[in-house]
């Protein structure tokens, strides 16, 4: 099926050109793709005149030429070992958007836990997928979610049965290797009632190619279930990364997001968490560490739609060079969502005079018996701390690095995967050295 409608922008047209609807012969899936395609054709490319994109000018992305990805390059698992967390004995790898079974390991999972590609899962868990896929991440108004959904071909499916616990963290690694290609990473996580799992969603660039990664992740957390979601965006420094993550929480569900943004020239991360039942508990941690001319935009939405919800959010940005960080944290407390307890904190560290941060809390509260707090700070390294360290023999650079690292550590140290704490800690230290000199 070729698109009949003419897209609103040559860029979208280019992305949709030659778009062949993947045919699985599964009618509900074909239907959702077709709807998404229709929206992708109709929606316009966001500009800085759109409130939601005020600070994030994606013009450079729309100027990127695209080439179809060549056949998946031959990668060895050793090429990826620097990304893989040793704890995650179960992992799926996608190379330039294509599932790479030879670089994945998903055997040996206990009964009640499934980690596999859509293609395989559609046969065994079709009903679950049908219930959730493209049902949480809306594409009606979201161009990039629509683009991802109409290209929906392969992705990662993680399912944990009722009252089961996935014994190890599950890592889903999307690695991009080719210049001027587009990938549409997709993840669906379903934790049934009382289930528990830890997901590591990892977007990585192998070199310094300029590519576009348009990702969508959906997480459904069942009643009393618990999902820990670590997200590492370490795409190539010339890449573009736009991602939406939609999380739906049933009664008494627990969800923790730990999102670390290091890569891409321009990145955008939308995290939308919706309470669909009472008493759920949410932690949203974010850390963006950027420098040079990078732009990292995080938009979060915490939707307290039911009573007794609790959310804790800490978003930190460390910005060096002439980089620009954006944080927009929206908290909605809907009518009737009484006894909501919500706290948001945005803390930002500017390492240079040209670095920039735009941070904006957005509270929309329609219930009266609630506790909501928010705060934002933007600052530089504390000169008294720098002097204290220097007075103990540390060089100014060492002192600044240590303090920058410490600033990020609050977020990193809460990541529920020890090897990632160490790895990211080292990356932050290494990066701050660069940032510090910039």
């Amino acid at each position, binding site marked *: 099926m070729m698109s009949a409608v003419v897209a609103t922008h040559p860029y979208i047209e280019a992305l949709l050109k030659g778009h062949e609807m993947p045919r699985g012969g599964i009618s509900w899936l074909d239907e959702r793709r077709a709807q998404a395609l229709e929206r992708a054709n109709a929606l316009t490319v966001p500009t800085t005149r759109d409130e939601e994109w005020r600070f994030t000018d994606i013009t450079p992305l729309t100027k990127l030429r695209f080439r179809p990805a060549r056949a998946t390059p031959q990668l060895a698992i050793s090429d990826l070992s620097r990304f893989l967390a040793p704890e995650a004995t179960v992992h799926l790898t996608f190379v330039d958007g294509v599932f790479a079974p030879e670089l994945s390991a998903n055997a040996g999972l206990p009964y009640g836990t499934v980690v596999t590609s859509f293609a395989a899962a559609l046969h065994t868990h079709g009903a679950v997928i049908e219930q959730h896929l493209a049902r949480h991440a809306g594409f009606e108004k979201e161009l990039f979610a629509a683009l991802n959904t109409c290209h929906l071909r392969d992705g990662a499916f993680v399912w944990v049965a009722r009252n089961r616990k996935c014994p190890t963290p599950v890592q889903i690694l999307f690695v991009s290797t080719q210049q001027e290609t587009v990938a549409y990473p997709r993840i669906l996580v379903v934790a049934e009632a009382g289930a528990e799992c830890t997901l590591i969603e990892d977007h990585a660039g192998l070199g310094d190619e300029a590519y576009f990664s348009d990702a969508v992740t959906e997480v459904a957390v069942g009643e009393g279930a618990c999902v820990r979601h670590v997200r590492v965006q370490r795409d190539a420094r010339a890449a573009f990364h736009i991602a939406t993550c939609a999380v739906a929480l049933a009664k008494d569900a627990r969800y923790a997001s730990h999102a670390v943004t290091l890569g891409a020239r321009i990145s955008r991360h939308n995290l939308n968490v919706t309470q669909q039942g009472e008493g759920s508990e949410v932690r949203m941690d974010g850390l963006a560490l950027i420098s040079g001319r990078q732009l990292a935009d995080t938009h979060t939405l915490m939707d307290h739609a039911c009573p007794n919800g609790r959310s804790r959010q800490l978003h930190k940005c460390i910005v060096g060079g002439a980089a620009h960080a954006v944080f927009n944290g929206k908290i909605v407390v809907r009518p009737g969502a009484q006894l909501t307890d919500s706290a948001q904190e945005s803390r930002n560290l500017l390492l240079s005079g040209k670095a920039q941060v735009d941070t904006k809390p957005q509270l929309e509260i329609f219930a009266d018996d609630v506790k909501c707090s928010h705060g934002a700070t933007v600052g530089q390294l504390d000169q008294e701390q720098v002097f*204290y*360290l*220097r*007075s103990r023999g540390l060089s100014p650079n060492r002192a600044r690095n*240590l303090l920058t690292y*410490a600033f990020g550590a*609050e977020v990193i140290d809460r990541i529920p995967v020890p090897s990632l704490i160490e790895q990211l800690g080292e990356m932050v230290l290494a990066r701050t050295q660069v940032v510090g000199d910039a």
Partner: protein
Amino acid sequence: MIRPDAKVLLEVKGLCAKVGGVEILKGIDLTVRAGEVHAVMGPNGSGKSTFAKALAGHPSYEVTGGSVAFDGRDLFALAPEERARRGLFLGFQYPVEIPGVSNSAFLRLAYNTMQAARGKDELDPLEFDDFARGKMKLLDMDPGFLDRSVNDGFSGGEKKRNEILQMALLEPRLAILDETDSGLDIDALRVVAGGINHLHGPGDAVVLVTHYQRMLNYIVPDYVHVMGGGRIVRTGGKDLAFELESRGYDWVRAAA
């Protein structure tokens, strides 16, 4: 211990310094030789901490006149970290809290930096842990303080102990201890003073900034200096501290 032939560690001549555009130090002269203990006393705001920080190289303190030789070198030609590496140590009146940096990592980094500067071996985390615990014992300090962030949430007295722990680890040649006794309880004062005495030897010197004679019962000074209005207005032996304790500062000011 006064030995007239001992090496001069610190030679301050006519030191003037400004902070926030205001001249605070107005010509300080002070000579400290190896082996000596000097006490610096004086009313609040007389410039004691300013003097200490100017020596340590705090960037907010602008030296506007005079000279300081440390171990025969022009102190002001050295960056703060170089001063530290050459053996100058400032025990802060108000130690800085650094949330997120573990005390053990900080102490080890400082220790290893100093070891490297002295051409000695560095210690890995495990070795350092043992070494640090030994020093903590000397100061009757709970090893649990290694696992906490630097000074973060430490009580006033705990911070001071942590300063002396750093002194014990870094083994400075000249330790300037700015009101280390303030905030310490009676027992802690004895322990910490004992630690300082233990660390002090004929090759190094200690400058104690203090308000109270009590500290000087434990660490007996060779000289007591009284600061006033950004100068040293009187110098005497340990008896001067007793005299100040009973008579206050007014008579010194009047005599100056």
